[in-house]
């Protein structure tokens, strides 16, 4: 028996508050089954448990004489045997349900208006709670079961009640009601979102970064212009008028006009990696975009273009400048990232197709199953019947989906990869797809039953049985194939057991081969060309699988 606090509504506003004196101990006694009586053998105080009695004896009676101890000892033995009996459970009467009670907020409001829900009033005395009416109803959440409401004297008839943990009264309710209280069976933990806060912070930062990026891009443009014009003057100076050294100096002056260069003497360590500069070993370089001094390893050269700055297009470059890691990132990284993300690898496209087909299967399959049930229940066996034709079309559709699904999934598994992770990704997609419930569920549609009945049914029914039977055969093949693949992958067993397994798998596959061959010849006889094609495809796959298994067996031995 369980307890919840409930707020009761009393139809007649005259509330007998005089009969609700407080009393803690009484209230507690509500909570226990009174079929077990445990009392202190010395002072007869009621006890809840043996442990409590132990404590009580120590606390209150520890000074008792030795003579009394013997009494206690023998009493203990008796108590032991009594206690070991199972608690008798209060029985729920099963009187018929009367009106289902409704719970409304107004009920609770009215109750509050009555102002009877002060602390003291929720306590009910022993003299009251033992009396019960015949028809006490658990009115919580449409339960309506009649229960023993131990404190139900004043609220037994036509009572409306709702659960109210704050100002309610203790009452006995059935287990269903106990558990159906709001939130009692909630297994969804607290979730707290920080997304908004994060995004607000990010806006501030990215704006700054964008500005910085734009500023650097501008500088890069200017640098490109400087280099472009210098090359021209350089060409004209080839007659010998301007020595190359001057060219370099003049360029440097232009570069420094774009951004002020940091003073050589002021810097002893690279600001990015903190390694010290030396005269020969770790020389100083200036970043042409921010002017800071950095070392070789924290900088790189980028190509300059007059109209575009994609660094890896070499041919229309007007020159190269050294920039630091940070500036390089600020200018190029975002661009590169967007470019990279926009490239869609093949696996993505295949996966999208796979997902599409899967949802198509998920939609069509239950429909088809319904149709089969319907056809069967109405005993429609006539091929020209409209419903039959719809079912046949749906079946064809489904078969088509399965074939496609299988093909794409295989393609994903055989995609070329250049890393172990990619390989794992592809094979995991493949494995998961083979274990999709909709793909696996096939066989379970009405498998054994439909087929077995189909086989034994008299002639007129054969048509229908065949169509489902064939489908199921194909599906069974499919399922088993995926299983055999996954099992051969997931187990690393010793040689002998591996051989054993292979032989078992081979046995199953060969059985299936025969089965499918049978279906093909039947379908050919009936000139179901499309079915024959689908089945043949399955047969080919089966045979391939058989060959592989045979090969593996040979390799093992």
């Amino acid at each position, binding site marked *: 028996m*369980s*307890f919840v606090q409930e707020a009761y509504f009393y139809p007649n506003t005259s509330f007998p508050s005089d009969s609700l004196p407080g009393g803690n101990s009484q209230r*507690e006694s509500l909570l226990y089954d009174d079929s077990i009586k445990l009392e202190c053998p010395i002072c007869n105080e009621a006890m*809840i*448990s*043996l*442990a*409590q009695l*132990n*404590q009580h*004896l120590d606390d209150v009676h*520890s000074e008792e004489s030795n003579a009394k101890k013997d009494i206690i*000892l023998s009493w*203990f033995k008796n108590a*032991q045997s009594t206690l070991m009996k199972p608690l008798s459970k209060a029985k729920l009467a099963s009187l018929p349900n009367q009106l289902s009670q409704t719970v409304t907020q107004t009920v609770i409001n009215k109750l509050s208006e009555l102002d009877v829900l002060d602390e003291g009033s929720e306590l009910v005395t022993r003299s009251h709670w033992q009396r019960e009416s015949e028809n006490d109803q658990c009115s919580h959440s449409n339960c309506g079961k009649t229960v023993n409401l131990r404190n139900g004297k004043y609220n037994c008839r036509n009572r409306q009640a709702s659960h109210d*943990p704050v100002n309610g009264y203790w009452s006995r309710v059935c*287990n269903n009601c*106990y558990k159906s209280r709001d*939130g009692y069976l909630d*297994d*969804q*933990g*607290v*979730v707290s*979102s*920080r*997304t908004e*806060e*994060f995004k607000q*912070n*990010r806006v501030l930062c*990215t704006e700054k970064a964008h500005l910085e990026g734009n500023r650097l891009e501008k500088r890069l443009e200017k640098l490109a212009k400087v280099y472009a014009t210098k090359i021209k003057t350089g060409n004209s100076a080839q007659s010998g008028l301007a020595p190359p050294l001057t060219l370099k100096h003049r360029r440097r002056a232009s570069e420094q006009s774009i951004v002020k260069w940091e003073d050589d003497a002021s810097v002893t360590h690279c600001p990015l990696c903190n390694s010290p500069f030396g005269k020969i070993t770790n020389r100083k370089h200036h970043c042409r975009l921010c002017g800071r001094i950095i070392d070789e390893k924290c900088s790189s050269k980028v190509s300059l273009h007059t109209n575009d700055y994609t660094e890896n297009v070499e041919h229309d470059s007007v020159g190269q400048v050294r920039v630091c890691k940070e500036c390089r990132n600020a200018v190029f*990284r*975002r661009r590169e*990232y967007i470019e*990279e*993300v926009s490239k869609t*690898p093949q696996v993505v496209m295949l*996966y999208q197709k796979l*997902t599409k087909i899967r949802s198509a299967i998920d939609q069509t399959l239950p429909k088809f199953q319904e149709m089969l049930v319907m056809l069967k229940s109405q005993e429609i066996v006539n091929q020209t019947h409209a419903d039959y034709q719809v079912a046949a079309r749906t079946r064809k559709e489904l078969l088509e989906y399965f074939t496609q699904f299988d093909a794409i999934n295989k393609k994903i598994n055989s995609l070329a990869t250049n*890393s172990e992770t*990619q390989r*794992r*990704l592809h094979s*995991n997609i493949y494995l*998961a797809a083979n*274990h*999709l419930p909709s793909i*696996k569920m096939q066989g379970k549609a009405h*498998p*054994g039953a439909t*087929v077995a009945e189909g086989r034994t049914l008299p002639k007129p029914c054969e048509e229908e049985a065949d169509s489902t039977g064939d489908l199921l055969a194909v599906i*069974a093949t499919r399922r088993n194939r995926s*299983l055999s693949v996954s099992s051969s992958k997931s*187990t*690393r*067993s010793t040689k002998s057991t591996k051989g054993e397994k292979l032989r078992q798998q081979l046995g*199953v596959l060969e*059985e299936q081969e025969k*089965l499918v061959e049978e279906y093909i010849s039947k379908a050919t006889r009936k000139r179901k060309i499309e079915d024959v094609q689908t089945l043949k495809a399955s047969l080919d796959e089966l045979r391939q699988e058989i060959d592989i298994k045979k090969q593996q067996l040979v390799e093992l031995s």
Partner: protein
Amino acid sequence: MDVVKAVQNYIYKMVNEVSGMKVLLLDNETTPIISNVMTQSALLTHETYLVDRIDNRKRDKMRHLRCICFLRPTSETIQLLVEELREPCYGDYYLYFSNTVKKSQIERLAEVDEHEVVREVQEYFADYCAINPDFYSLNLTYPQNPLYGESPTSWDGRTFSRVLEGLLSVLLSLKKKPSIRYEKMSVMAKKLAQEINYQIQQEGQLFDFRKTDTPPILLILDRRNDPVTPLLSQWTYQAMVHELLGIQNGRVDLSDVPDIRAELREIVLSRDQDSFYKKNLYLNLGDLSANIRSYVQEYQTRTQSNMNIDSIADMKRFVEEYPEFRKLSGNVTKHVALVGELSRLVEKEKLLEVSELEQSLACYEQQQNDLKNLQRLITSSHISENSKIRLVLLYALRYEKAQNNATKSLVELLHHSGVSEQKIMLIDSMMEYAGADKRQDDLFANEGFLASAKSALRGLRGAENVYTMHAPHLAQTLELMIKGKLKDTSYPFLDGVTRDRPQDIIIFMIGGATYEEAKYVAELNASTPGIRVVLGGTTVHNSASFLNEVQEAFHRFSGGSSSRPPRFGQQSRTRV
């Protein structure tokens, strides 16, 4: 109140947030949280095709994948995440933190998310390991997470904040704003209770749940009050595997088992995936062996029937049963190997004999008789050193205040029979840690005048099996609490007293809980409608890990040499 479901639901919520190909990125602390409740194949069905660690710096760039991050917001992990966001490996990022993220951490992450790859930042409070639906652990073990700081009654600072965060997340994941009670004598329990209470007040919004009939109770206990339970040999499946082999995040290392097959070197014990385990984890070795036998028979009949498939119907049935069959065959070998190894160890270390004496020492006052048996076992060459130490510890704890306490002579005897000096030192450490003066309750029920009566009663209680008579002290505490009779003077409320009979109780055991206690709680939940109890602790102890923790702590405090005390084996214990 189901911690496994609570954690699983968080994870499902994460992986279902977006569709498409996903990678799940974890850190060293969230990996065990996930692996306790999830399998790879369950993740696969939610399009999570790759699982990787954020501290793996050699991950491939796969910009076409969406990345679900489930991370603890520690400074180390935030740093790794900062580096990740600077050079994102994947297309989109959905960040789920297992606990509250600091404002400064949010700012730091926002600052580096220049590519604007982050789509979600959420706190999902799955910051603990859920072992059984009613049993959790914070996995804080010595030596990485020492319990004690400056003194044997003060917290290690780092461990304390981890405990605080872990326990808050338990409450949040179960949506409980509890009344807090604690063991009065434990300084550490009181400190934790106060800090939890403070944090709940601080996080008012998070803890704003609908009112319940009676407030849920958070009961904070100290292992010190019951040092006996973790010392006893265990005979129920889950507890026994942990005691003899060690369960780490649902995995058992069998690599030391003689002639073990390669695929059984490490096995997974998962309630979700393994119905045999789920059905048997609380059964004792006897019942378990019977079940294993019928399990094997079932397997054999199935293998035979599929050997002669001669009709299509047969084959169909076989195919139908094939997945079951595969699972079955994998499972049967696993449990046969496991139970086989348990039996071997029991036989080898004469654990039945040891256990009988352990139970007697734990449950009865019969000093002379037990002493004789104890002396006999100490001098026996078949009994392991650890067993001898555990027996003497039990004796020393029970008869600490007895007039004719023979602990000294037993220590002598241990010396004579060649037990290492350092292990013997543990007896003093244990008395320091949990001697009668350190315990608040009358653990052995031998301090009051009705000692013999009570002991007699205890003896009667579970008389059907001499190896499982002992009931953890927790049982008594909980029974009193459920009846509203647990004394305020011993287990005070932090603020306010409620006389209501509690409905939901969350227990946290400082210093580690045990599987024996977990089993008790599971049985209590099953047999007491209307009451829900969830048990947890800093860790899950077996005797070896418990002794290690006590030894380490008290070796340090007794001002002993700086040399490391001897180990009693890892949680997965070393074979003697």
